[in-house]
């Protein structure tokens, strides 16, 4: 069994971090995990994405052309990668910044205004965590308690961020449930 999730957005939107949190959570479950960034230009402001592959056996190619799932933080990401998602996958869209949909019928597409939610929580940077939580809830890949645990560990150096991120998880999960 292999799960492949792509996280895509602008650099600085916390997309890499969300991927890492997902990867760490999978590691906690003692699965094989590869987190691969498509590291963009050496400079800022471009688009960025990463792919997390989780499997119960050794992972061959870390290079995934057609991921099972996609988390799209901005419009170019959805446009570029939306059509690559395997049929039956989940597509999570940050509807705060994306006003279109992938147009696909063979996937489970969910719109969450993550940037707005994050803005309300106090920092637009937690938008990616909002989407991640919504994704976990929707896809059933990672249970929320594990997600909370990993996030708490990840930010142990900055306690002030922990609460905000935990809130982001709640809001994200709620959004997924609401849209179910």
């Amino acid at each position, binding site marked *: 069994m292999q799960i492949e999730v792509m996280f895509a957005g*602008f650099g600085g*939107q916390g997309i890499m971090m969300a991927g890492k949190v997902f990867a760490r959570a999978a590691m906690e479950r003692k699965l094989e995990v590869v987190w691969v960034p498509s590291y963009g230009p050496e400079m800022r*402001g471009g688009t960025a994405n990463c792919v997390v592959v989780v499997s119960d056996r050794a992972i061959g190619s870390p290079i995934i052309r057609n991921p099972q799932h996609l988390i799209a933080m*901005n*419009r170019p990401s959805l446009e570029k990668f939306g059509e690559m998602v395997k049929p039956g996958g989940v597509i999570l869209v940050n509807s*705060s*910044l994306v006003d279109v949909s992938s147009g696909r019928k063979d996937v489970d597409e969910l719109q969450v205004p993550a*940037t707005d939610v994050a803005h309300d929580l106090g920092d637009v940077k937690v938008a990616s965590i909002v989407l991640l939580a919504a994704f976990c809830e929707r896809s059933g890949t990672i249970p929320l308690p594990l997600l909370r645990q990993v996030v708490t560990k990840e930010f142990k150096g900055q306690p002030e961020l922990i609460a905000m991120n935990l809130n982001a998880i709640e809001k994200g999960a709620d959004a997924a449930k609401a849209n179910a």
Partner: protein
Amino acid sequence: MSTNKAHICMKDGDGPKGAVGSSGEKHHPASQPKKKRHIHRIDSERCKGCGLCVSACPNQVLGQSDHVNPKGYYPAVQVQPDKCIFCALCCLICPDVAITIDEVASDTDTRKT
């Protein structure tokens, strides 16, 4: 398709204190007294919302929009357009050449630009 936020001033241009930032053109203080208007535009697609213009403006003309632009930034907007003296300090500091000031005859229809 760039959304230019522009504001227009009907006052006469009364000449710069020094040679300021307009590319290639020299402004002559003693030019003939003709009605001119200035148009101050912010290209909200170019703008990255850095806020440098906001803090550089001597007259608190500028502020930050609360709408995100397609690049994900909150661009600058003229919050008090009337206070603008077209000093171009905002243009000088803007790293993205997102602000321009045009000078046109006062009868020019700026809505066409």
